[in-house]
């Protein structure tokens, strides 16, 4: 495997997804601190206004176009890959970038992944990034997991020096996550699940940028995977109540059990299974009997059912109801929260630790929660998300 290039050689850094929220802040920090020269790879010129404030270098292209990727990589010493997109961008785009990185002898390839590679409900052992990933039931996480495998394959087979960072929800000014919370709390569509006692895995964008910068030059980082999180970890209760205080709105509460519905891919199957159970339930039949016509039909069917043998009745009942599984009804007040991912993510009980990043990279997570919140509040006012 190729050794990482000496630190002094890393100067120009290609940043994919540079016009995004994290890429934008990374460009800002690089431009303001001056040690690295960012080359911003942008797919659209329409959304790059934030980084055009700085006299930095731009390259316009599409990751799916190998030629434009190669032009973008030429002359760079390192790459930070933040771009997202549809499947072809995530797969063919990444492959183009990795191939160009190998061809151009890139000294460091920092790939931004996600804690979602562990799925919607990560196992307890995923406190550490060394925990094996057995199953990922999160679509985005599965795509990112595929990306991680692709990146590590290039490290293994082509000698590309890579670093993989796995942040949780990234918050701060310009954060979609922060904006989403504020907007939903204002509308009353975001609730606190089970009193918000689970850990809220967050990383402030500046803390993630610190980890990216360290990953660009620390020799220990090569071919490692790191969680990057804030420290200390706060609860969802604190997170959401603090956001609610910003918008001066109350926060509804919902019980964990009320959110337990099947994932989207199982909705049809579960519905087909549940419908006979509801139809033969005593509660429904009691209501339907108030309609005279239905009462006559139902009495005839019931009489026919009673004429069957006891074992046949039991067998039929079992097939219709699916055995002894009770029909779960959900509190009507919780229905409007069920489809929102921000409620399911509150069910995650694991606090991912960035201890490895601290130990190997010297990651400090310098922006504390209170400082980050004060800056977020100032930006929300500026961006007209809160009244002046």
């Amino acid at each position: 495997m190729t050794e990482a290039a000496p630190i002094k050689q890393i100067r120009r850094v290609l940043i994919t997804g540079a016009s995004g929220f994290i890429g934008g802040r990374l460009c800002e920090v690089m431009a303001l601190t001056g040690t690295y020269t960012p080359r911003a790879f942008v797919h659209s010129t329409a959304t790059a206004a934030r980084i055009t404030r700085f006299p930095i270098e731009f390259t316009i292209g599409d990751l799916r176009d190998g030629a434009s990727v190669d032009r973008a990589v030429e002359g760079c010493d390192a790459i930070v890959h933040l771009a997202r997109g549809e499947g072809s961008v995530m797969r063919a785009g990444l492959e183009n970038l990795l191939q160009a990185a190998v061809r151009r002898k890139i000294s460091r390839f920092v790939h931004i992944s996600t804690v979602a590679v562990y799925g919607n409900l990560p196992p307890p052992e995923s406190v550490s990034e060394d925990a094996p990933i057995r199953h990922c039931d999160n679509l985005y996480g599965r795509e990112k997991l595929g990306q991680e495998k692709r990146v590590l394959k290039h490290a293994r087979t082509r000698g590309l020096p890579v670093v993989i960072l796995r942040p949780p929800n990234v918050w701060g000014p310009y954060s979609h996550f922060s904006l989403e919370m504020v907007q939903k709390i204002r509308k009353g569509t975001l609730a606190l699940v089970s009193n918000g006692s689970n850990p809220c895995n967050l990383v402030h964008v500046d803390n993630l940028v610190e980890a990216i910068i360290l990953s660009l030059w620390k020799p220990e980082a090569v071919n490692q995977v790191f969680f990057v999180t804030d420290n200390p970890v706060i609860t969802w209760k604190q997170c959401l109540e603090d956001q609610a205080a910003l918008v001066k709105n109350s926060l509804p509460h919902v019980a964990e059990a009320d959110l337990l519905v099947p994932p989207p891919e199982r909705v049809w199957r579960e519905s087909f299974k549940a419908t006979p159970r509801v139809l033969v339930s005593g509660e429904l039949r009691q209501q339907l009997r108030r309609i005279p016509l239905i009462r006559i039909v139902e009495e005839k069917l019931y009489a026919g059912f009673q004429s069957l043998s006891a074992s046949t009745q039991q067998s039929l009942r079992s097939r219709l109801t699916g055995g002894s599984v009770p029909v779960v009804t959900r509190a009507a007040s919780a229905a409007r929260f069920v489809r929102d991912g921000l409620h399911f993510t509150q069910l995650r009980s694991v606090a991912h630790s960035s201890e490895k990043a601290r130990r190997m990279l010297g990651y400090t997570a310098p922006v504390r929660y209170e400082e980050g919140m004060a800056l977020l509040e100032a930006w929300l006012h500026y961006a007209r998300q809160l009244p002046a």
Partner: protein
Amino acid sequence: MSDAKSNSSILTAERKTGSPASPIRIAIVGCGSITEGAHLPAVLASPEVQLVGLVDTSENRLRSLKEKFGPQIPGFRDYKELFDKVDAVVLALPNFLHASVGTEFLKRGIPVLCEKPLSVRKAESVQLCEAAKSGGVVLAVGFVTRFFPSTLLTRHLLETGFLGQLHSFDYEFGTAGGWETASGYNLSRETSAGGVLAISGSHFLDRMLFLFGDVDVVRFLDDSRGGLEANCIAELLATGSGRRLPGTVTLSKTHRLDNRLRIVGEKGVIIVAEGQTLSVTYFPSGSDLRQEIFMSSSVPGAPEQDYFRLQLEDFVRAIREGTSPGVTGEQGLKSAALMEECYAKAERLDEPWCDATIHYFPRALPAQ
């Protein structure tokens, strides 16, 4: 210039004899997004002009537009090939090329409809205006919002004292993102020459001068860090008609603002929302009423006109009749001078979310 005079005289003569004027031969120089979305459709729709060519240094852009609008349209890589082929041009190049290329056409007597802004530099605008004036050639500036009925209506209401004594005005326009440009000229100061003030704000600066007369820049704040400003706030003082009217202009390319002009007077408030082209909204003082005001010639609910075509045909009329276009070079010069004054007075907007944590990063960087 003799060529210019002969061109103009032919066109004017046709008009004077009453015979139907033949379409004037026009080319569009610069094939970016504004040409694709506005100028080219307007040119193709108007019987007043005949398209004789598109110009762009990018073969891909030429091919793309020809595929979309017609393979028979002649394409040129060099605008100089057009000097003897056109009666007029629409100049839709990146801002930094307006002065040099526009002057070349004007000096050859070829009228120019220059996409806004004329320039963000007063000296470049002067150069263009002098080239037009010395040759007696029409120079029009593409501030298309001037052709909105709501702009003319607002000016009419102000001139007739509809609001009584004016107290203040403020204008806001902000979107999360801006134009998708074909060339990427809007990514750097070298090619764009200005940020949100020049790109989004220049339309209003022109309208403001049209509505209120001369304007002084009291203070200008922006968020440029050596590049292009994405946000800015201009505090202004309109001094036209012997009054001193304070105003504010707030612009953003990072987030949405209220996107309207508000004029406050003693009798009430007028609001003109961005994109409100046909009417203005009036809120009388001390009343809960809200009134939509239209020009008597307007039909509420009527379909929008193609304002780029109106602008183009106004340009053609000015060429044929020897009159002033709707927006003259001199008016473009005034707004350019105002932008230059803003940039000269620029102070940095306070952005604690950008600066307050920067001191943490040096310790994460490798030792130099």
